[in-house]
């Protein structure tokens, strides 16, 4: 890691353009400089549309057809990219640049064995014989720490877990000994415990093999965990660059400060996340009006239980005519209460059953055992209209949650009319307008279609739609995990405000402990279909009792904790 070694990547004044249909040009990357030395992990951070993935794609030779490198130079390990063609022809992807993609579930070909996918690059670029390639494939499998490497070589991708697949992807990236690896969100699709292992693996490979890594990510915790240097991008341009500690602890550029400030901290609960607020008088008035309309539904006092779940069990499994049903128990004996006006959190890794619990309460899945008591009514498979009205849901993916063929007004007014909460279509439209204002959107937003809005705006619309039927319980299933941090911060603030102003109770589901800490009053930690710990949020975070909770807290990458630890040890 000495500064005298030749950089593995040297980008000067790189400019990537996309010619548009109307004759204009979209500049996706504006004259950026970036240098990576051997053994260095350089994080490229920014929100969606910042151009960070475009930089990665330019290096991997994956720029989409009309896009081209318009100016600048890229030198990878001393070899310069041929800019005459606007494509990376001077450098062979795979041989000189290794690639790690985001989702290990989709980046391996399902029809070919691990061995064949590992070997094909070596056969092509290194001209190895098939026996040499196989021997090297085994070495690589050992290097990335896959258990039983001999047996795993013959496996197909679906036989491996997500973490193992990402290890295979890393092994293929390393196969031809590239000096540079481009990792585009390598751990975003993984659970925290697996994420921690993969990050450690990447760090070790950089240290031991002297590979330079360009880490494209949006997760500041990941950056703090393994990156040596950081470059923050906004709208295609670099706004700040420097060592990880400098940039994350003392950002200079205003945008960098906003971006880092928007990351929800895991070690302290904030009243509101520090992001530019859109608290206009219009929004506040609209919320007060929403609250007045909801007033009749909140007659009880704050300690009333809105929802009581007892010994909830959910089983999935096809019953077949010929053999005994093979049953998967997704939820086993889960019990908790949600009090009026409370935000109750459910946290856990993927597959722990948290979404199944939400879907069961919402009536999308039928329980196989236990009881759900909602405002004094026991819920079964078939539900009263009034119950369905009082239970509303906000889903994870705002892109698929809205009907693309309905105008926003119609989408929001639909449930209002369905539950006869407005006497006329006009009144419903007026309600829709108020709701849009309440979630911080301009009132004329309703005349447009879903595609006219960004992800964050769509999620606001989804929240407005859920508020339309005047629910007493709002179920939010990972409402911000598909969004950028600054948008996430705004939405989290919004949900808190709505709770305070409109008297909502919420069941809030997330895999992100930091988000849970910011949002929830009480929280339950789920593992393999069971609740392992349930406590007040502050108690849970400051004095976790269960081993699994402690493990999750320890593994969650967090800017403050990691840099704080470094500062303490220095």
């Amino acid at each position: 890691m000495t500064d005298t070694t030749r950089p593995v990547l040297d980008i000067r004044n790189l400019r990537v353009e996309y010619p548009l249909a109307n004759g204009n040009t979209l500049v996706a990357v504006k004259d950026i400089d970036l240098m990576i030395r051997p053994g260095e992990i350089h994080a490229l951070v920014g929100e969606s549309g910042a151009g960070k993935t475009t930089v990665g794609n330019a290096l991997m030779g994956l720029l989409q057809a009309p896009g081209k490198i318009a100016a600048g130079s890229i030198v990878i390990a001393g070899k310069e990219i041929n800019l005459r063609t606007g494509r990376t022809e001077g450098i062979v992807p795979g041989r000189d640049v290794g690639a790690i993609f985001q989702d290990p579930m989709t980046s391996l070909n399902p029809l070919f064995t691990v061995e064949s996918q590992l070997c094909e690059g070596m056969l092509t670029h290194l001209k190895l014989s098939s026996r040499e390639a196989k021997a090297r494939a085994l070495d690589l499998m050992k290097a990335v720490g896959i258990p039983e490497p001999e047996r795993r070589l013959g496996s197909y991708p679906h036989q491996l877990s997500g973490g193992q697949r990402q290890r295979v992807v890393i092994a293929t990236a390393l196969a031809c000994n590239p000096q540079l690896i481009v990792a585009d969100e390598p751990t975003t699709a993984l659970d925290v415990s697996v994420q921690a292992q993969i990050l450690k693996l990447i760090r070790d490979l950089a240290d031991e093999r002297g590979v330079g890594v360009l880490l494209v990510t949006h997760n500041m915790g990941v950056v703090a965990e393994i990156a040596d240097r950081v470059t923050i991008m906004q709208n295609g341009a670099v706004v700040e660059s420097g060592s990880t500690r400098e940039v994350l602890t003392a950002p200079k550029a205003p945008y960098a400060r906003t971006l880092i400030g928007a990351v929800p901290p895991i070690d302290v609960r904030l009243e509101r996340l520090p992001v530019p607020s859109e608290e206009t008088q219009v929004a506040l008035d609209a919320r007060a009006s929403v609250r007045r309309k909801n007033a009749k539904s909140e007659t009880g006092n704050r300690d009333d239980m809105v929802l009581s779940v007892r010994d909830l069990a959910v089983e999935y499994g096809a019953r077949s005519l010929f053999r005994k049903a093979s049953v998967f128990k997704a939820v086993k004996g889960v019990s908790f209460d949600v009090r009026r006006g409370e935000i109750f959190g459910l946290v856990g890794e993927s597959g722990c059953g948290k979404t199944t619990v939400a879907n069961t309460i919402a009536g999308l899945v039928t329980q196989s055992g236990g009881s759900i008591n909602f405002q004094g009514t026991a819920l079964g498979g078939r539900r009263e209209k009034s119950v369905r009205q009082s239970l509303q849901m906000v889903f994870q993916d705002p892109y698929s949650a809205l009907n693309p063929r309905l105008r926003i007004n119609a989408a929001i007014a639909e449930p209002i009319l369905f539950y006869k909460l407005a006497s006329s279509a006009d009144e419903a439209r007026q309600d829709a307008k108020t709701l849009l204002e309440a979630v911080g959107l301009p009132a004329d937003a309703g005349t447009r279609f879903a595609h006219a809005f960004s992800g964050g705006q769509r999620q606001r619309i989804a929240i407005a739609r859920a508020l339309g039927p005047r629910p007493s319980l709002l179920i939010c299933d990972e409402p911000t995990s598909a969004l950028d941090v600054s948008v996430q911060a705004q939405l989290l603030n919004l949900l808190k405000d709505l709770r305070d102003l409109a008297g909502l109770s919420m069941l809030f589901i997330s895999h992100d402990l930091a988000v849970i800490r910011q949002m929830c009053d009480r929280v339950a930690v789920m593992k393999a279909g069971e609740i392992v710990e349930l406590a007040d949020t502050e108690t849970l975070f400051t004095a976790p009792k269960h081993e699994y909770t402690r493990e999750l807290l320890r593994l969650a990458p967090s800017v403050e904790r990691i840099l704080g630890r470094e500062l303490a040890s220095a």
Partner: protein
Amino acid sequence: MIRLFSVRLLQAILVMVAVTAIAFVMFRFVGDPVASMVREGATQAEKDAVRVALGLDKPVAMQFANFVGQVLTGDLGTSYRYQQPVTTLLLSRLPATLELVIVATVLALSLGIPLGVLCALKPNAFLSRLTQSATLVGISMPTFVTGLLLILIFAVNLRWLPSSGRGDLVDIGLWETGFLSLSGLKSLILPSITLALFQLTLIMRLVRSEMIDVLSSDYIRFAFARGLPRPYIYGRLALRNALMPVVTVTGLQIGQLIAFAIVTETVFQWPGMGLLFTNAVGYPDVPVLAAYLLFVGFLFVMINMIVDILYTFIDPRLRTR
């Protein structure tokens, strides 16, 4: 995997029992078999004798059991029209249809797959555009129009190829083949093209859309990011994934063609199963119709099983389940 096969086999047997039951009902209720077998003006005693000889006086369940027994031993009754065992009749017609369908399918696959790939990779190339529009015509035109047009051009006007029949056949034991004589091969050309056209369009379009889907997948982008050669990515990594649904469709299409190549066989007077079936409907030759029903049922059940088994060979994900 063994459990998968045995479950599929059991399902296949159930389907076949149901089909046999329908064929049995057809025998009993479509027309009176006794009336069609005795001479004009037969006495009641004579009719009763035939009834007993045919076993029609026994309980229905027993009759069905007998029928199943006969079917299993390959005895499908005697054709009213040809006065021959139906089994012999079917077997004598089967080679004609099978040869026609095999040639048509090979033609459709060998042209459809590469053209589909081409249309997916180079949507704006001249050949792609030509293929796209030509196959649109091909799929919109009824088979008999295509057939008649081909006859008009190549048989009537140009006099290059025969317009009907199978030409000279060579007997190779159980099978009379047209593959081994020049006139036999020439006779195959027009009907197989007619039959292949629709299938070709279907396969071409399927391969095209599947290929476009697969090419935008992460694993293909990942293959490009590893710098693998393009022919390898397209021809092996992508095509293999794109061919999965083609297997199903081709299987079902082969079944369709064998069972219902009726129009083509009629147009070209091809002495295959379709022609046998059309003639049987007109007569009405109930044993042939019932046997045909059984045969078609059996064919589709077999094809579905073969497709399922093929799937487990192509897609490793199905093997472990």
